[in-house]
Every structure is written in structure tokens, then in C-alpha cells.
């Protein structure tokens, strides 16, 4: 369990949590319609900062994205009164596309890497430890809170500054448009007539403590589960979301839940899936709400922003309305909150789902009891290991001879050892690398199981994010005369898709997470993997380093690990 010291939300509705909460309580929204914004031919509705707001937020030497995230984190840290330069504190940055708008101006790939942004932000904040960025598509914010819970519970840090942020631009908006996921009108979560999502810009921060704090908000539990179904469509049965809910809510918790704050993007599939998952988890009687009608889908900020807002609402004994919702349009039996109502309960669930098939959920409470978790002791044991570079393949220490170098080496591995999974050819280079490395790893492990499992997690790290897919997608939108955004390329600009591909191939319903750091740090990877075994279901992890900078610079060093003495 970890405890809130301070928080902040910056959105077009305000620059403090209090301002944002009041705006939402009053039913206000910053959603508005844009025609021809950024030369995008289709109209769309979004929640974007105004020019004046952007100017006020701009910080010399930082990008627009970095300025936004930094300001939110700085405000929360100031309110926490912690001297982060001397405290044992970690910065966890949550973002879906981070600095991607720099790809239009800057030819230097490192500027675009999310780990670079995290480093800049940590330096400005005066945090001396190495930051971690979580890039788990739309669930990043909840994943970041789950990671904070683990790192603090494991005793690795005393405090975590968990900051989620995203800004919108031609790259992100055209991508979601190509997936036919965006509504040109204001979104209508869970409604009969919902027509898709609206994107939004925001940052939100939580400063969390390992030491119990009386009367404070606590994040009690959190989990991530995968649908193992499809990289961009949620499971029709809501498998992953239901499993995530079941992992964090015990029967005895149900009575004390004030509400469930759903993802509620207002796409046909997401809301339907969530309703089935909530009902399937036995939580159908608990009020459900969604905040996308106020802020839009703020991507990497969403999980944190919506958690902070839910805390503020619960403090005010309020279950907020689902703006845009009128008439139920989902088949799972759920109880939508259509108007602000009162509650005297002090706990809620935040749930969220995203591309790559990942689903996350946390349970937050106004301190029910004070306790510090036992530190997760133990070490990890590497059962099998695969290393791939442009010229070498090594399995459990033994070199594997195959014709080919660079990209063609990966195809050679596929043809020699798999050859019956044509989806391989649809994958971006990063996913191909992760896919063939895992295939070799599982071959080394023995006979492949073809039954679904929830006890194996896939937790990977890299530096270059999805740079190859980013560049390829950019090529499909950069020329206004030849503007044909490719949905199949855009999906792979979410680096966590590789974890989804592995989960889907092997029917792994366990956790899938993707972390980015500005350089490979094996000690940090090891500590994070050990801490990840705090998920009681996880018995083994496919984990490690997987980076694809370009066809002559890539590296996989992944392994199957188990926790010894667990």
C-alpha cells in the first residue's frame, strides 16, 4: 500500500486539481470541434490547450510535452514539501507518445525517445535517481501507479513522483482517425449513440509515499492483465479487464466501493467490453462513471488524471456524472452515473484498457488501515535466455548459426523455427524481434502450451521506443498531397504492442508492461522484475531488453525468469 502526499492536474480546464474538480462538478468541458487543424482533412472534436495556455506553460529549453509534464510534477512536489534532491525518490513518467510532435521538426531520434524526456524532466526537478517511463499505450497511467506501488512496497524508494502527460498533434490525431476511433462530435461514453472518442491534452501527477500517512489516500492494490486476443480490438468477453478487476477487488471490498471509474472512451468496442467485464467481475451493482466527456482521452495522463479526480470527488462525497451519457448502449448490466450524486463511501476502482490488449485496474481508499508492506525479498533466476543482435543469435549461451544479417536474420529465424504464423510479416521490426526472440526462448523451455494462462507476465524494456514504426507512419502523413495515414502502421507506434503480440501468440493473460529508459541499466531491470513478482498471480516473467533502433542496430536480451524463494 502506498500513500498520497500531494497531487496536481493541468488540463485546458485548469491548472490545479481543485480548479479541474470544480469545473467537472459544474459540468464544464474543454471539448470543442476542430476543422482543418494541423492540415488534417477530417473534422474532429478534442480538448486542446489554447495558444495562450500553451504560451503560459512553455518553459525555455523544454519541449511542449516536457514543459507540461514538468510543471505538473513541480507543482505536486512543491505541495508535498519533499526535498527531492536529497530524498530517495523515483520519477515515473507515463506517456503514450511523449515528444512525438518533435518528429515533424527535429531529425534527431533521441529527442523523440520518451526516456530522453523523462531524463530532462527529472533533471529539472532535481531528482537524482534514474527515471522510468511506462509506455503501455492507453493504460500507461494506471500501469505507472502499479509500478509505483511495487517499487515502494519493495523498499527500493521512499517516494514516487508519478506523472502522466500527453499532448496532441497531427501524428496522434491522424492515427486515431485512421483507426476510425474518433468522433467529430463530443463523445458519449456508454451511450446508445456513441460514435467514438475525443483526444485530450493534460498532465497529472501523484506524489506517493511508502511510509503510512494517517488520513491519507492510499493505493491499496493494482494489477495489469492482457486479453491475449487482438492488438487493437478489446476482447469481446472482456477477459483481461475482468481478470484485472478480480485481481484487485476481493468479495469483502465490494461493500466499500463508492464507484468504478471506467475508461469509457465512447468507442463502440471499449465501452461494451468494459460493461461485460464489470458485470462479469460481479461489480454490476456499483455505480460506474467516465470522465472522457470533460477532458477527452488524455492518453498517458488518463489513468493518473482520472484517479486524482476520483480522489477529489470522493473527498467531496460525490460520484461525478458521466458527461455525454444519456441512454445505456452496452449489453453488460452496469449502473451508469448520469448525474452528480452523493456517497459516504471512501474507496473506488479505476479501470482502463488499451491497445496491445492490456487492461489495468487499481483500488484506492482513504486510508482504511495503516500498514507498510513486507519488502519483496528474493532474487530472480534466469531459466532460459535468448540474445539477438544484427549478426548473432545466442540461445542459453550457445550460438545459433543462421544465414542472414540485420532485418533478414529475423525473417530467417521465423522461417526456420516458426513458419506458420503469417502475422509475423505484418509486424513492425520491434515486434518481429520480440516475437522471434520469444519463440526461441519458448523452444528452449520445451513443449509449447496452447492453453491460456494468467501466471506468466511479459515485461520488456528499451530505449528507442517504436522509432522505426514512428518514422514509417510519419511518411504516410507528412506530405499533404499524399496524405494517407496507415492504421496498421500507426498501431505499431505504440511500443507495448510487442508485448501484446507475444501475449496473443501464447495466450498469456498475465501482466504485460513496456518500460523505457534512456540507457540500458540491467540493475534497474532486475529490480523492476523482482518487484513485479508482487503480483500474486505471476509465477514467471518473459522479461528483459528489446531495442530496435534501425536495421543494423538492434538488440534483444530476454529471458524467462522465476523468483527464487517465493
Amino acid at each position, binding site marked *: 500500500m502506498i500513500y498520497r502526499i500531494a497531487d496536481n492536474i493541468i488540463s485546458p480546464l485548469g491548472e490545479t486539481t481543485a480548479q479541474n474538480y470544480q469545473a467537472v462538478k459544474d459540468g464544464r468541458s474543454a471539448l470543442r470541434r476542430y476543422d482543418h487543424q494541423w492540415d488534417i482533412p477530417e473534422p474532429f472534436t478534442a480538448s486542446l490547450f489554447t495558444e495562450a495556455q500553451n504560451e503560459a506553460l512553455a518553459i525555455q529549453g523544454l519541449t511542449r510535452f516536457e514543459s507540461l509534464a514538468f510543471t505538473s510534477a513541480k507543482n505536486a512536489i512543491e505541495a508535498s514539501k519533499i526535498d527531492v534532491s536529497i530524498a530517495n525518490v523515483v520519477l515515473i513518467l507515463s506517456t503514450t507518445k511523449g515528444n512525438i510532435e518533435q518528429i515533424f521538426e527535429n531529425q534527431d531520434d533521441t529527442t523523440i525517445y520518451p526516456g530522453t524526456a523523462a531524463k530532462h524532466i527529472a533533471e529539472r526537478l532535481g531528482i537524482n535517481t534514474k527515471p522510468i517511463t511506462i509506455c503501455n499505450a492507453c493504460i500507461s497511467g494506471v500501469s505507472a501507479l502499479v509500478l509505483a506501488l511495487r517499487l515502494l512496497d519493495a523498499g527500493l524508494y521512499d517516494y514516487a513522483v508519478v506523472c502522466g502527460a500527453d499532448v496532441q498533434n497531427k501524428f496522434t490525431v491522424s492515427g486515431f482517425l485512421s*483507426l*476510425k476511433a474518433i468522433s467529430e462530435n463530443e463523445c458519449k461514453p456508454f451511450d446508445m449513440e456513441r460514435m467514438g472518442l475525443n483526444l485530450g491534452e493534460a498532465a497529472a501527477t501523484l506524489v506517493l509515499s511508502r511510509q503510512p500517512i494517517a488520513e491519507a489516500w492510499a493505493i491499496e492494490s493494482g494489477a495489469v492483465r492482457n486479453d491475449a486476443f487482438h492488438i487493437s480490438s478489446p476482447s469481446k468477453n472482456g477477459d483481461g479487464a475482468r481478470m484485472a478487476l478480480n485481481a484487485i477487488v476481493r468479495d469483502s471490498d465490494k461493500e466499500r466501493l463508492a464507484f468504478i471509474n471506467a475508461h469509457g472512451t465512447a468507442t463502440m468496442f471499449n465501452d461494451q467490453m468494459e460493461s461485460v467485464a464489470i458485470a462479469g467481475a460481479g461489480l454490476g451493482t456499483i455505480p460506474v462513471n467516465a470522465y472522457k466527456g470533460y477532458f477527452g482521452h488524455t492518453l498517458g495522463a488518463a489513468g493518473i488524471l482520472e484517479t486524482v479526480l476520483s480522489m477529489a470527488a470522493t473527498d467531496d462525497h460525490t460520484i461525478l456524472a458521466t458527461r455525454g451519457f444519456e441512454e445505456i448502449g452496452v449489453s453488460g448490466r452496469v449502473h451508469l452515473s448520469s448525474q452528480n450524486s452523493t456517497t459516504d463511501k471512501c474507496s473506488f476502482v479505476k479501470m482502463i484498457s488499451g491497445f496491445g490488449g492490456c487492461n489495468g485496474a487499481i483500488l484506492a481508499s482513504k486510508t482504511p488501515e495503516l500498514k507498510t508492506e513486507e519488502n519483496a525479498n528474493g532474487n530472480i533466476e534466469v531459466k532460459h535466455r535468448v540474445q539477438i543482435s544484427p549478426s548473432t543469435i545466442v540461445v542459453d549461451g550457445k550460438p545459433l548459426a543462421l544465414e542472414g544479417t540485420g532485418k533478414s536474420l529475423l525473417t530467417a529465424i521465423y522461417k526456420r523455427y516458426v513458419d506458420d504464423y*503469417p502475422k509475423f*510479416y505484418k509486424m513492425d521490426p520491434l515486434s518481429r524481434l520480440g516475437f522471434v526472440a520469444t519463440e526461441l526462448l519458448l523452444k528452449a523451455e520445451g513443449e509449447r502450451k496452447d492453453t491460456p494462462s494468467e501466471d506468466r507476465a511479459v515485461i520488456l524494456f528499451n530505449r528507442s521506443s517504436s522509432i522505426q514504426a514512428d518514422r514509417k507512419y510519419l511518411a504516410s502523413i507528412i506530405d499533404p498531397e499524399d496524405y494517407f495515414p496507415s492504421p*496498421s502502421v500507426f*498501431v505499431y507506434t505504440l511500443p507495448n504492442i510487442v508485448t501484446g503480440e507475444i501475449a496473443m501468440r501464447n495466450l498469456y493473460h498475465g501482466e504485460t508492461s513496456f518500460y523505457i529508459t534512456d540507457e540500458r541499466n540491467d540493475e534497474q531491470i532486475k529490480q523492476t522484475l523482482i518487484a513485479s513478482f508482487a503480483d500474486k498471480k505471476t509465477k514467471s516473467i518473459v522479461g528483459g531488453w528489446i531495442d530496435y533502433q534501425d536495421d543494423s542496430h538492434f538488440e534483444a536480451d530476454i529471458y524467462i525468469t522465476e523468483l527464487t524463494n517465493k
Partner: protein
Amino acid sequence: MEDLVLELKKEIIEALNLEDVTPEDIDADAPLFGSGLGLDSIDALELIVLIEKKYGIKLKDPSKSKEVFMSVNIMARFIAENRTK
């Protein structure tokens, strides 16, 4: 029409990265989706991009695409009737 069907098969193979598939492997009357080609919802979206890019046809309503993408022959007929380039 036969030329268009063959051209379309080649374009589908390229756009959807159907590496090990040849035009002869695709039965022009068989359903494109739910058949041996293993196509999914992203492939359907990519086909929408394809017919806009190559033939200048804008499919605004994604649900309409289900009818158009029934088979390569149906797709070819639709393109022949609606193409602007």
C-alpha cells in the same frame, strides 16, 4: 475486369503484407474476411486506405466496407463503378 481483379489481388497482398500468398491463392469469389487469409479489423481499415489512395474512393462509413470487402470480385466491381482515378 479480369485485369482489375488481378491488380487488386496484388495490391491487397502488398498493402496487407501477405508475404507467403500469391494472387492465385486468393479465390476472387471467396469471402476476403473470415477465410484462410486470416484478415482482421486493421486489415479492413487498411483496405479502406487502399481504395482511397489508388482509386480515389472515400468510404466514409466503415460499416459500408463490410459489403464492399465481401470478395475480391465484389470489391473490383465496386471500384470499377466508383473510381475517380
